[in-house]
């Protein structure tokens, strides 16, 4: 038996790793690549998603993620190049259509490819910091289509051409535009900006540069603004239809710059249609349009404001300096108020009630009102006029509006103390002659002044009202106490010295009848108020005289105290010379002349006759009683020739008084400041004093300097021994 042939054992080395079929990754990739081709060729209905997903899954699982990813990049790039060629081949207007439809297809394909490679996206891409499939697809589209040499410029030119055509009135396919810009936005905001937005803005700038030049040569300002507004709205609408919302601010900035900013000055100053003529003609709509458009550019409103302000100052200056206007103060102030109303209305209805415009208006008014030194007087006269007669039969509310408007003008005044001075005079006249229409209106104005300037400004004015009231009470007491029914009746107003604008030295010899009752009153008054002194202000009184004339006609004559004194003289004599009258009455000659003038020189109303007949009173004149005086009325008012406005010398006098009153105020301010600061240099004192006093008036630095010198003389202050510029307070 032969031994069986020994079996030879061959020991295979232990296999550590089961080798996969080396063709497996290649085959699997082929399958997936095919599928991608099919997807791009719209042939996806034969594909099994499950199989493809599993294949991609297996490739990643077996560490062929790299191969899969790179394969995807290559295959997709290849397809996109092919698509690019198709798009390039599209003729003329079809180009955008083709691009859009291919983009839609690519998106759809990309979605499907992402579905298949979802597992790779979640594992391989995340682990190796790769670009996810969807983003990769967009990037490849961007690089191979949108930025390819032959498409890039053509796309841009087509888009810009469409926009241009739409601007010139053609109708374009907005839906298509929307899709294309949407595509650029989907590719990232950087792509949208680089490939479209920036050139679009440049083109718009060129377009509007040209167009605005044309417009400005052919249209007037209002028309130009209408066109600019329309263009602006068109661009905003364009953005909403087919551009990125973020482009709105950029494109409007371009239109604003080209159409408004660059022509701003030209527009505003355009002759016969620019801002000035809009203002003069109250073109509210055009002004509003200018405001809204100019507001969009940085210096736009400032430009309008400056021109408006300059115009306002100039017209205002003409108004206040016009000698014609100065003849009638009421008219003068009414003009100012009308001007203010006009601009208030413009600012309110066209300028959006812009605060800066209101400020410009205020500063312009402040500027020109103070150009005319008589403005405070005129304003006070305006008030006087209103309170005397102008407010009769006007409702309380309307009174308030008028007063408020006056207060507004008052606020513009720098020399408020001058106003106060005049106001006091006018108020005194109103109160003493009982001519004020409404007590409420008077008080209301005083309250307004008080809120504006503080209580010390109005304390004297209020004192005047109090005096009036106390006087009424006193008179009541006097009349009930006194028993005399015969003889003249007396009405006295006791005025506190200092509160009233009294003129000292007003003197005259009262007729004896009057004098006795005056003395009686004096005794009565001093018995109730000890330690006081009464002086008669005959220059401010009035008298009612009963007179009988030649044909037995009786009249009651309402005259001033002076006139009464003169007329009483003619009870004893028929004819008197000027000298006689002057001697008998002792009335100051200026007042005497004035009184005589009103008695003798008013035609048809003259109680006296004058020899020789002339308009003016001279010292040689002789007066006789005119007993042929006739009037329809029983009561006759003989008005004194009063200057409504102040005459030149009076003006100078008031001015001097004002200056005189200011001195103690300035000194008080200086002392107050130095008391607090102990040491201060000249310039700072001047500025502090100005600051403290500007609510009342603007002190002149020269005057301040004089006051300082005076204070040094009186040893309130001294100059610093080392630094002569410094002042030191001496306690």
């Amino acid at each position: 038996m032969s031994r069986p042939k020994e079996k030879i054992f061959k020991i295979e080395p232990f296999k550590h790793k089961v080798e996969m079929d080396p063709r497996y990754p290649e085959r699997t990739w082929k399958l997936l690549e095919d599928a991608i081709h099919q997807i791009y060729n719209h042939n996806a209905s034969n594909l099994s998603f499950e199989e493809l997903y599993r294949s991609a899954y297996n490739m990643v699982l077996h560490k062929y993620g790299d191969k899969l990813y790179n394969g995807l990049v290559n295959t997709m790039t290849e397809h996109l190049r092919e698509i690019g060629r198709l798009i390039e081949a599209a003729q003329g207007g079809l180009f955008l259509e083709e691009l859009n439809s291919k983009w839609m297809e690519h998106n759809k394909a990309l979605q499907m490819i992402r579905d298949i490679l979802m597992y790779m996206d979640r594992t391989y891409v995340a682990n190796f910091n790769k670009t996810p499939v969807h983003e990769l697809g967009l990037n490849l589209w961007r690089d191979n289509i949108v930025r390819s040499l032959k498409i890039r410029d053509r796309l841009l030119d087509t888009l810009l051409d469409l926009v241009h055509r739409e601007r010139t009135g053609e109708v374009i396919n907005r839906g298509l535009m929307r899709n294309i810009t949407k595509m650029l936005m989907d590719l990232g905001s950087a792509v949208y900006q680089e490939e479209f937005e920036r050139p679009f803005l440049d083109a718009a700038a060129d377009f509007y540069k040209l167009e605005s030049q044309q417009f400005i040569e052919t249209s007037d300002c209002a028309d130009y603004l209408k066109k600019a507004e329309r263009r602006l709205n068109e661009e905003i609408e364009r953005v909403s239809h087919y551009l990125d919302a973020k482009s709105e601010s950029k494109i409007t900035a371009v239109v604003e710059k080209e159409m408004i900013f660059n022509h701003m000055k030209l527009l505003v100053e355009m002759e016969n249609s620019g801002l000035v003529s809009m203002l003069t003609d109250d073109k509210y709509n055009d002004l509003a349009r200018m405001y809204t458009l100019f507001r969009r550019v940085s210096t736009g409103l400032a430009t309008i404001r400056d021109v408006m302000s300059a115009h306002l100052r100039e017209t205002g200056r003409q108004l206040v300096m016009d000698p014609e206007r100065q003849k009638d103060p009421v008219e003068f102030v009414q003009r100012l108020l009308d001007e203010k109303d006009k601009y208030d209305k413009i600012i309110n209805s066209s300028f959006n009630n812009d605060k800066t415009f209101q400020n410009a208006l205020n500063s312009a008014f402040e500027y020109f009102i103070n150009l005319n030194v008589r403005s405070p007087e005129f304003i006070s006269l305006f008030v006087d006029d209103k309170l005397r007669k102008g407010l009769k039969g006007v409702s309380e509310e309307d009174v308030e509006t008028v007063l408020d408007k006056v207060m507004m003008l008052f606020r513009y005044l720098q020399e408020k103390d001058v106003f106060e001075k005049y106001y006091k005079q006018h108020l005194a006249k109103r109160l003493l002659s009982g001519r004020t229409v409404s007590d409420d209106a008077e008080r209301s104005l005083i309250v307004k002044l008080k809120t504006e300037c503080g209580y010390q400004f109005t304390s004297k004015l209020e004192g005047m009202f109090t005096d009036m009231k106390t006087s009424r009470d006193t008179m009541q007491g006097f009349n009930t106490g006194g028993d005399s029914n015969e003889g003249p009746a007396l009405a006295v107003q006791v005025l506190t010295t200092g509160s009233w604008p009294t003129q000292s030295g007003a003197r005259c010899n009262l007729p004896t009848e009057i004098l006795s009752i005056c003395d009686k009153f004096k005794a009565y008054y001093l018995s109730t108020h000890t330690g006081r002194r009464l002086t008669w202000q005959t220059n401010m009184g009035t008298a009612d005289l009963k007179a009988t004339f030649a044909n037995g006609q009786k009249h009651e004559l309402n005259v001033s105290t002076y006139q009464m004194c003169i007329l009483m003289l003619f009870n004893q004599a028929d004819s008197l010379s000027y000298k006689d009258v002057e001697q008998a009455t002792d009335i100051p000659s200026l007042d005497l002349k004035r009184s005589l003038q009103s008695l003798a020189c008013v035609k048809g109303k003259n109680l006296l006759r004058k020899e020789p007949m002339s308009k003016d009173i001279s010292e040689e004149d002789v007066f006789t009683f005119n007993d042929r005086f006739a009037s329809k009325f029983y009561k006759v008012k003989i008005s004194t020739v009063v200057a409504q406005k102040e005459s030149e010398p009076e003006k100078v006098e008031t001015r001097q008084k004002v200056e005189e009153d200011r001195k103690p105020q300035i000194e008080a301010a200086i002392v107050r400041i130095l008391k607090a600061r102990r040491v201060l240099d000249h310039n700072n004192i001047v500025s502090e004093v100005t600051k403290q006093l500007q609510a009342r008036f603007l002190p002149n630095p020269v005057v301040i300097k004089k006051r300082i010198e005076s204070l040094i003389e009186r040893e309130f202050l001294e100059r610093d021994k080392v630094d002569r510029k410094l002042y030191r307070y001496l306690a």
Partner: protein
Amino acid sequence: MGDGRVRFDVGGTTFITSTTTIANAGQGSMLSALIDGRWHQPSDAGIFLDRDPSYFAVLLELLRTGELHVPPGMSRRALHREALFYGLLDHVKEAQRGPLNGNLVECRASISGRAIGDGIAIRASSDGGCCVAHETMVHVYDWALEEKQPLTLDYVSVNDMGFLNPERVVICTYERGEQIGGMACFNVNTGEIEHRYQVTHEGQGKNFPALAFASNHRHVFASCRKRISDYGIGVWDQTTGEHLDFFHDSEGTHLGDARKLQWLPQSNVLFVASLYPQSDNSFISLLDFRMKQKAWTWTDSKMRSSDDKLVMDTVAMDERSTVCVVNQYDNLGFIDTRLSQQAVKWNHMYTHAKLSESEEHCYSRLAACGSQVYASRRDNVLVYCCSDKEATRCIQTANLSKEGRGTISDIAIGGDRLFVLQAEENLFDVWETPILHGVGC
């Protein structure tokens, strides 16, 4: 199939479900792509899937009910793999644990490492993964607690580490010469360095000694204690690794020695704490990088009468604008960051028990989550709930302990998990709040 029904043939087993159930899978999942109109479905026999039906059944049930029931004997790991295939991994993650609540947590897993030496620090990622430092090595575990590649930065001892995101870990060490050590970002999947974060001088990048680290969604912050000119907090771009900014320590608050950094997203500030033993006194600051200024600072240098109130660890509670601190006797205290230079409100709920000299002692470590503070105390973790009314008051509500555990060296919170690292046994526990189904949802 019409009428909203879908038929699947998964590895031979037929499942019928509705399109609405599949819609629960969400846009990015394979299942919803399957039934999307984009893809043609050829046969009436249903959509074939070459997968194991038993896992599919579990996942389909998850889509139907929102609950995950893993049958006994089924490998979780395999289930996760299948979930990843279907694109349902996020659903599975979510279904496994509820929001972290110290009063309800259970110990879900105990992971033993194979590293040499004691675990010194543990950090958690936002999705529930963690990393553990052992001397020079960092061991990384993903959310499923699968161990990844161990990481090391040139075998230099780790000072601090943490996650930028679940895929990226940053390690801070001292620098050793020009090339070695410093701070770097690793990809946990490949175990390779993605960036080294360097301090740049005149275009020249240099490694630096990094002590502690924090990050927000864009930036990386680290305390740097190199020279006078590089002493403070550096800022880098997370994705490019570019050095962006440097916050120099101008007021002697030891920024460069900071051992703990924490980004506070609500207040938009960086919490920086320099503590014993790096500095003798404790300094806590909030840095506002938008304005490059200190928004708030606190130090115990003036208020410490004796050395018994050393701050050993601290954690900021962003939502409550408070900082929680713990001293060497495990006493908890709070500081209100809305007030300047305020004294610590110590919580005297328990007092210090005398330590035996022989016992190795680990100081208490802190972690915070919402209004809950977790403090390790020897082998336990104590849970404190803070009062809604008072920012600086809290009450102990739970005590987490596990049989046979030794001293705890560090704790961390992330991804609704609490990680508790043992000092000696090379072991860490994972605590989670179980999902309570049908209750108050």
